[in-house]
Structures are given as structure tokens and as C-alpha cells.
């Protein structure tokens, strides 16, 4: 078989089967560490064997069987540990979880364990990318600009806590489910945002690998929990943002704001899928949560062929709805951008500056103020606001954009 085809088959199998293999082994052996190691060994064996033996007809089954053997080998090797192993088995219930409108999938247990609220958020992100996403530790370390050894320690410590504190391997009860799903979505949205607005001077301004991984994992949760409105909302939101990815950064690395993007280069297929998901949620008539409202805002933007066609009153109405669900002052910043189009920059400035104290450390607050002050012809105040926004912004494309805007003030 062609080595390129084999490599592609392994990559495909890795994407499709990694989480399933880890989840099945965790269930069987009650130990994330054994599951992770055996899964990694099974994929390494595939890389070794498939070029000579050919790709098996059912790669997932082959990988699971191989990983199971590796896990048993390890347990036998450490036979002294075997009894302890049995004692330390993770707790799981054998009853199927309460009906969720989805098939009972081991991967769901894996996701909820990795995103357990007793783990720090950064730890949940790392563990989810490793155990569910199948990223290697060096890949995750690179994504979050930490040393691989530090990332390895974080993941090792998390696995030890899961075992010692008995974080269960189970789908939460119906009563706990909404809060726990919200915790999973927070992790996925943080991964997406780090890809979308990558921080740090050494990184690309947009990390397509992280946004793609976040979308892939959210798709998986959506397939497992198809009736959860916020899961659907987050998937729609990610798709509608991702659709504009290539239009968002100029060749010279400068951020292009929404109003100046080449809308012809937006990904129509992703937008169509995002719109479909938003319509699906609207049709249920159930009051939307935060992600669904944000997805609806982005659906309004992506429905306008030209920025001048944007239905700004609809955007403001959606942000008003969002404030009722989530009273965070950060929303006031995004709302102000729409208010400026609808009622003018003066009204928008007053609305956003009401939150000056709470938002002083937030770069987007100063960037938005800077733009409003510029439009009002208040050059000196605009310059100070740009300075502060540049100081606080972590994303290189955004810094480039803000710097040019500030420097253009000087020529006015």
C-alpha cells in the first residue's frame, strides 16, 4: 500500500477513534493513565504495522483490541500492582445514564471526567485536549506556551487527583447535567478563543489548529447531546466565527474588523450550517442561553451581504437579551458597537463608559472607546484610549491594527 495512503489512514483513524479507544479502556481498566498509554501504544503499533500488513477493514476495532492487549500486558508486567490496581479502580455505574436523547457513548463519560469542576480550568483544557482530542503533550504545551515538562506534570497531577479523590467516570445525573454541560462548553469555548485570538508574541494571530479542534470536539458533544440547546448554540457560534477566519487577518498580519472584511471570502458552507443550527434552536421556542444568543448575533452579521445591510437593531435587541441572561459588563462593550451604528457614537460612548471601573483592564473596552472617540473627533482622548488598548492587547494582529489606527490620528 502507498505509504502516503497508510499515513492518511492512521491520521483518519486517530481523529475518529482516539477518544473512543481511550474511553473504552478507561471503562474497562478504571484508570485514565493505563488507557492513555495503551491507546498511544496501539496507534504507534498501527504506524509500524499497517504499511506492511495493510490497513485493517475495521481500524477502530483493531485499535481497541491492540490497546486492550497493551493494557493487559502492562498490568501483568506490574503484577505486584495488580491488586492495588483493582482497589484503586475508578468508580463507575453500570446502569445506563438517564436518557439524554442520545446513544450512550463512553466518550461522554470521558468528557465529563476531564471537565470535572474539581479540576482547575487550565487543567480541564489540557486533559480534554489530551484524552478526548488526542493531541500530544508537546502539542498542547506549544498551544499554551508552556514547557512540555510543565504540561506533562499538569496532566499527570490531574490523573492522580482523579484517581485519589475518586472523580467518577460517569455521565452526571439529570439534576447536575446542565451545570456540568456548561462546564464542558466553557472548556471548549476557551480552546476556540485561544485559537481565534491567540495571545503571546511568538504565536500566529489566528491558530486554525485550535479552532478546528474546538469545533471537532463540540461537534462530538453535539452528536452525543443533540437536544441540548447550548451545545447547539456553541457549535453554531464557532462555525459562524470560523467562517470568517481567513477574512479576519490581512496578509501583513493586521486584524481586519468585521465592517472592512471581504465578505466574498467568508466560508459559505460553514455559514449555512451555522444558520441552520440557529434556526433549529429558534424553532424549539425554548428560551435561549448565552451561546445561542451569541450565535444569533453572529447569524445576523453573516446574513448581511454588505456591512451597511446589517440589521443593527436586531443585534442590539439580542445583546439586551444577553445582558438579562449574563449581566457581565463585557457584553456592554460588544453592545456599544451596535448601538453606535443605530444611535450614533455619542450614545454608545456614554453606554460603554458607564462600566469604566469594571472594564479598565480589558483591552476591547479601550479599543471600542478609542474608535468611538475617533469618530467623535476627540483625537487626544482617542489616542490615550488606543495607547491603553495596545498595552493590554495580547494578540499580534490586533496590536498591529490598533497601532495603525492610532498613528493615523496623528495625520488628521
Amino acid at each position, binding site marked *: 500500500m502507498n505509504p502516503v495512503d497508510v499515513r492518511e489512514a492512521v491520521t483518519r483513524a486517530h481523529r475518529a477513534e482516539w477518544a473512543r479507544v481511550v474511553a473504552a479502556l478507561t471503562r474497562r481498566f478504571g484508570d485514565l493513565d493505563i488507557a492513555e498509554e495503551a491507546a498511544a501504544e496501539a496507534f504507534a503499533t498501527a504506524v509500524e504495522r499497517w504499511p506492511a500488513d495493510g490497513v485493517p477493514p475495521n481500524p477502530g476495532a483493531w485499535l481497541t483490541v491492540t490497546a486492550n492487549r497493551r493494557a493487559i500486558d502492562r498490568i501483568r508486567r506490574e503484577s505486584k500492582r495488580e491488586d492495588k490496581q483493582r482497589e484503586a479502580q475508578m468508580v463507575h455505574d453500570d446502569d445506563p445514564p438517564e436518557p439524554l436523547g442520545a446513544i450512550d457513548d463512553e466518550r461522554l463519560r470521558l468528557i465529563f471526567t476531564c471537565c470535572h469542576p474539581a479540576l482547575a480550568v487550565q487543567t480541564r483544557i489540557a486533559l480534554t485536549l489530551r484524552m478526548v482530542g488526542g493531541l500530544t503533550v508537546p502539542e498542547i504545551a506549544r498551544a499554551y506556551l508552556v514547557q512540555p515538562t510543565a504540561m506533562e506534570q499538569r496532566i499527570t497531577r490531574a490523573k492522580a487527583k482523579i484517581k485519589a479523590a*475518586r472523580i*467518577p467516570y460517569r455521565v452526571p445525573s439529570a439534576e447536575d447535567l446542565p451545570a456540568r454541560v456548561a462546564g464542558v462548553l466553557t472548556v471548549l469555548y476557551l480552546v476556540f478563543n485561544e485559537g481565534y485570538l491567540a495571545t503571546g508574541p511568538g504565536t500566529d494571530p489566528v491558530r486554525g489548529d485550535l479552532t478546528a479542534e474546538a469545533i471537532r470536539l463540540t461537534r462530538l458533544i453535539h452528536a452525543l447531546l443533540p437536544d441540548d440547546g447550548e451545545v447547539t448554540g456553541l457549535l453554531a457560534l464557532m462555525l459562524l466565527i470560523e467562517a470568517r477566519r481567513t477574512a479576519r487577518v490581512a496578509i501583513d498580519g493586521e486584524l481586519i474588523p468585521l465592517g472592512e472584511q471581504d465578505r466574498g471570502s467568508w466560508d459559505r458552507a460553514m455559514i449555512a450550517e451555522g444558520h441552520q443550527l440557529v434556526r433549529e434552536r429558534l424553532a424549539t421556542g425554548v428560551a435561549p442561553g448565552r451561546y445561542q444568543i451569541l450565535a444569533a448575533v453572529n447569524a445576523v452579521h453573516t446574513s448581511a451581504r454588505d456591512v451597511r445591510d446589517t440589521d443593527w437593531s436586531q443585534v442590539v435587541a439580542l445583546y439586551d437579551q444577553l445582558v438579562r441572561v449574563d449581566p457581565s459588563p463585557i457584553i456592554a462593550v460588544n453592545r456599544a458597537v451596535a448601538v453606535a451604528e443605530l444611535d450614533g457614537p455619542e450614545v454608545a460612548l456614554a453606554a460603554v463608559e458607564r462600566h469604566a471601573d469594571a472594564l479598565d483592564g480589558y483591552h476591547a473596552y479601550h479599543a471600542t472607546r478609542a474608535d468611538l472617540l475617533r469618530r467623535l473627533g476627540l483625537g487626544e482622548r482617542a489616542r490615550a484610549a488606543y495607547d491603553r488598548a495596545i498595552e493590554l492587547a495580547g494578540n499580534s494582529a490586533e496590536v498591529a491594527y490598533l497601532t495603525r489606527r492610532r498613528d493615523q490620528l496623528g495625520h488628521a
Partner: protein
Amino acid sequence: MQYLVSVIDDKSNSGTPEEMAAIDEFNEGLRADGHWVFAGGLAAPDTATVIDNRDGAAIFTDGPFVESKEYLAGFWVMEAADLDVALRLAAAGSKACNRRVEVRPFL
């Protein structure tokens, strides 16, 4: 599986009558549901004595082994199937005693 649920406070024996009543009620629930192992309040850290008898000649030191503004003011030992159960019980315990608590598994 047993968990230590520590009550964090900067005072000792500082529960109000309402808090004590809520704790009693919470403890009754623990007993009724089979989670109760042991619980107690502790006197202030400055009543502690540290003992070092590692080399056979016991040395007694007045005061706690670590000085901190907040300390262990009381604790529960609870029986729980897993951390989800322990966290739910600890959350109810925190509410009952009106203090922050820490959950830590026994080995």
C-alpha cells in the same frame, strides 16, 4: 471511600446558635443517609503543642506546626461513594456551618 471535610475559619468556636442548629440538622442527615463517620470542632491553634520524638527524646513546642491567619476550625470525616457525592455533601456542610470547607480524600 472516606473524605476529610475541613472547616476553614479565622476564629474558633465562633458558631452562632443558628449555625449550630443548622450543623446539627446537617449531621442528622449524614447519619440517616449513612455518610456519617466522625465530626468535631477544634480549639484555637494557639492551644496546640507540636511533639518531635523522632530520635526518642521528645521535644514539645508550644503552638501549631504552621502559623496562618486561617486554620482548621473543625472537620467531618464522611463516607461517600465518590467525589461527586462528597462535593455535594461538603457544599451542604458549607451552607450549614456558614464557612468555607475543603474536601480531601483519605488514601
